[in-house]
């Protein structure tokens, strides 16, 4: 009995330790063409083309960024402290995140994500950045994010970046409203690099920068550099310039690597459903949080 019991525990532990190769064979079904994509050896990047289905090169888990933006994780280390303005710090402290170094219990959060508000931009790059589909034509590039089934358009037709004005952005002579995913304009700076500027996002009471509660405002200007290193690999670098929240521009994502996926890959749905969130909190989040900060038995 004893030996059988111990053996079963050891088998379970071994299953976890050696699970990676076993499950690698059980990954999502791959189209026969997938192997060609995966095994191609660094073919050159096509000119002015970042289209395709892209996944974080180290696996989907790398894009979750559970500790906040990948280049500046919110881990309490001095070198990762952001250059907050006084208002930025005040706003950050008012946020109650469920992840990161200042995480709170699931009953105490105030993350707009948890009431199924849109993540918005640039948070779409900084939270659950998973399978990312990019489609483009001669006028624009469209990015389809897996999380939240969200998409945005980057215009590459030569138009100017809208100017930030009181109440929104100036597009031509028209003042347009702030948007969750802003207004984006891209320019190819060389054969393989698309530089995108984005303005006109929602104010700080609507959106966060990342899952750890770092703030962002409607005055932010975001620069993205999509650099296609070769046919199968792309890197994304993102700079945040938000004078309302931060005293200087800073690098939030530094050459974050993606690998090209099989073009036939069917991306899994990933959404926030208010009814499912309510059920989860009722069944698990609330009872699991009850008295969690008290020593057991008190």
């Amino acid at each position, binding site marked *: 009995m*004893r030996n059988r*019991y*111990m053996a*079963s*525990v*050891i088998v*379970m*532990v071994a*299953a*976890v*330790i050696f*699970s*990676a190769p076993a*499950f690698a064979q*059980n990954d*999502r079904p791959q189209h026969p063409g997938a192997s060609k994509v995966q095994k191609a050896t660094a073919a050159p990047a096509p000119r002015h083309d970042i289209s395709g289905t892209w996944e974080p090169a180290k*696996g*989907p*888990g*790398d894009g*979750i960024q*559970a*500790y906040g933006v990948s280049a500046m*994780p919110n*881990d309490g*280390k001095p070198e*990762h402290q952001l250059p907050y303005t006084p208002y930025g710090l005040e706003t950050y402290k008012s946020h109650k995140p*469920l*992840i*990161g*170094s200042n*995480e*709170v*219990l*699931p009953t105490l*959060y105030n993350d707009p994500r*948890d009431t199924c508000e849109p993540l918005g931009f640039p948070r779409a790059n900084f*939270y*659950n950045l998973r399978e990312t589909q990019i489609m483009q034509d001669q006028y624009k590039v469209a990015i389809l994010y897996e999380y939240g089934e969200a998409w945005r358009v980057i215009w590459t037709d030569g138009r100017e970046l809208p100017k930030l004005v009181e109440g929104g952005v100036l597009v031509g002579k028209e003042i347009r409203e702030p948007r969750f995913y802003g207004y984006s304009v891209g320019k190819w700076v060389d054969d393989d690099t698309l530089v995108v500027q984005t303005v006109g996002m929602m104010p700080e009471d609507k959106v966060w920068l990342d*899952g750890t509660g770092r703030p962002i405002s409607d005055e932010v200007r975001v620069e993205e550099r999509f650099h296609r290193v070769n046919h199968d690999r792309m890197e994304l670098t993102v700079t945040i310039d938000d004078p309302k929240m931060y005293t200087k521009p800073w690098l939030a994502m530094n050459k974050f690597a993606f690998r090209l996926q099989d073009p036939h890959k069917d991306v*899994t749905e*990933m*959404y*926030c*459903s208010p009814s*499912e*969130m309510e*059920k*989860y909190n009722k*069944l*698990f989040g609330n*009872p*699991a*949080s*009850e*008295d*969690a*900060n008290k020593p*057991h*038995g008190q």
Partner: protein
Amino acid sequence: MRKSAIRVFAVAAGLLSGSLPLFAHHGTAVLDTSKTLTMKGTVTEWDWSNPHCLLQFDIKNEGGQVVHWIAETQNPAEMVSLGWGKASFKPGDEVTVTLMPVKNGHPYGRIKLVVLPDGKTLVTIKEGLTPKAPGESSGGSKSDDYPKQ
């Protein structure tokens, strides 16, 4: 026998803690990350939904009383990558669940692995699919690397 069992669980917990999963939706504030429990139970419901799937099952405690447990996994998209599916469980399945319990002592926890009736093991941790704490090496980390509660 009892001491041996505890020792084996301690070894199991130590090995498993090296790959403590971080979830995207919430962290570990509710969890007792120092503990790992393994228990046999009967599935009553498998809820395939966001932000986390929930496995509900009944176990019998030492006094023979039925205790209803609810344990979470990650979200469906993550679980598909890990080989789980909406049809992974059905009510009545006899399963062995290894989980990290919550701090408050109530029967809730975060699943690390489940052994199915046919012996197949489903895990919630996989290199490259499970997010890591900053600075964590690909070979896993000590539990001290995780944020303090």
